[in-house]
């Protein structure tokens, strides 16, 4: 049977449509989808105690969402150019690992203890200077709801690796 010209044209059109549509998901080039999203989080600032001429000075730093203990991480970070210009420095020279614990006997909503130790095994034998311990204790207590710090490697009269320190013990260092 011969296929007449009109029918052949119809078939061609149908085939062209099918070919143009393609099947399945087609890969694309790089497509722009608008401007970059604007940063919109406004978390509470954290307070970091830096050393200023042998004394401690609280310095505010921007916070991050859901990271109230950010201050302890920030202790080991070199101060910013502006802070350095103000004569601020930090005595904490190793990264810290911190988590808060609540005594099982404590009432709900009770004050928590912050457990702090150097991050990584190679700092296990770390001995903190007094001013560094003061930085850690005061910064940790600046976290809302923390009333004391269990610090690994703090100068301790009985020689134990863990020592309970509070910011109050270093009141003489506060500016």
């Amino acid at each position, binding site marked *: *049977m*011969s296929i007449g010209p009109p*029918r052949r044209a*119809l*078939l061609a059109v*149908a085939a062209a*449509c*099918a070919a143009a*549509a393609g*099947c*399945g*998901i*087609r*890969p*694309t*080039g*790089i*497509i*722009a*989808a*608008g*401007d*970059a*999203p*604007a*940063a*919109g*989080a*406004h*978390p509470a600032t*954290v307070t970091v105690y830096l050393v200023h001429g042998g004394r401690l000075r609280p310095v505010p*730093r*921007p*916070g*991050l*969402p*859901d*990271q109230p203990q*950010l201050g302890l*991480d*920030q202790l080991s*970070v*070199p*101060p*910013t*150019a*502006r802070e350095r210009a103000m004569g601020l420095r930090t005595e904490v020279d190793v990264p810290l690992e911190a988590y808060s614990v609540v005594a099982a006997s404590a009432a709900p909503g009770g004050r928590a203890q912050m457990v702090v130790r150097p991050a990584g095994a190679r700092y296990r034998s770390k001995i903190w200077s007094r001013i560094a311990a003061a930085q850690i204790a005061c910064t940790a207590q600046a976290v809302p709801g923390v009333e004391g710090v269990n610090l690994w490697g703090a100068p301790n009269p009985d020689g134990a690796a863990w020592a309970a320190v509070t910011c109050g013990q270093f009141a003489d260092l506060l500016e």
Partner: protein
Amino acid sequence: MTRRRRLTGLRTRLAAAFTAVALLASVLASGISYVLMRRVMLQRAQDAVLTDVRTTLAQQVPVSLPPDAERLVGAALEEALGSAPGRRAVAVPVPLLGGQTGVPPPGALDVPVTREFARRAMRGVVFQRVYRNGTPYLLVGTRVSGYTTTVGEPWRTTPPMVFVSASLRREAADLRLFTRALLVADAAALAAALGLALLATRGVLGPVRRLGAAARALGAGELGTRVRVDGRDELADLARTFNGTAAALERTVTELRAMEAASRRFVADVSHELRTPLTSMVALTGVLTEEAGDAPDGAAALLVAAETRRLGALVENLIEISRFDAGAAALVLDEVNVADAVHATLEARGWRDDVAVEGPADLSVRLDPRRFDVVIANLAGNALKHGRPPVTLRFGPPADGAGGVRAVVADRGPGLPGDLAAVVFDRFTKAEAARSRSEGSGLGLSIARENAVLHGGTLDAANGPDGGAVFTLWLPDGKEDE
């Protein structure tokens, strides 16, 4: 032929057109719905990922960053964006320092990120659909704007870029399912269209077939054929027209036949009426010629007698022809020795010495001796009158074994002129039309052929290879008829 007509027939063409239209429509509809469906599906999937990325970035990245917190932010973003099934996310520092490219390390995502993609991602949200190992992925890249940083150390407080790869495997599977459903639907539509087309064409083709059969019957001479007219469509109109035409044709043909029959009857009546007085006149002129043998006006009497005999022969021939026309001619078959019959015929006409006869002496055929005599006499007489000697008559059993007798009468005359060969057996056809008073009646060959046909045989005229007319007679053996 029939098969070819089937294939190019109306039914096939109608069904093909019907089916083609249905197929085109359904394929077009499926194609459009497929394209729309795919667009909506992909749009939704892409929008979901893009919105997720935008929202997460806006919620997780603070306006100002603490120094060196990029890894913390990046980890939080990777956790938030890469937790959905089929997605992976990676955060890379914005390339502000030398050595940084903004391209995530290979293997961090399901698809590699090109340098160009990373460059475009610096300026805003970009996405790309990529195939990797046969699976389609959506790759999204962007950075965050609207943050504040420090002039001196911007790299310490710049939020990272984010790249997210989302698998489109589920969308692809949905599309495949949809395609299969469309194909099934198209096939069903095609089958339904074919069935409907066959049903519809049956309604058209039935009347057309009936019309065709009726037209064939009409052509074969069944003038009473009519077609049933049903419905009020064009085909019914056509059938009505056909019936009208057939009725008119039948009327005309009947009238013509009646007129022809009347004229033949008239000829027959006239011939019969003429016969009796002519018989007396022939007898009387015979007497007159004998009496006027020596008289001075004897030549006139002889002429009158000859013309009267010719007139008598013409009337006899006319009566013979009338019998054929009226269907009253009948065969009286008898076992005849062909050689004897031929010799008797020539002897009776006095042509014994003018015609050379060849043929077996023992050939015996069952035929009508009187009519055979007429045929042979007419053929031989025609050859003697219009051709030139020697006239030969060869007879014998047919070469093809058909039975009966085959006789060939040939002369050495000028032969049949080209325009005469076709009409030589028609009535009153004469070789020299201008010579109105020829010796022949113009009916001899016509009667010979009527006799041959009455036997179920044939009589053909042709020109011989070396000049002269050749008449070939074949008469079947009458035994088979009884």
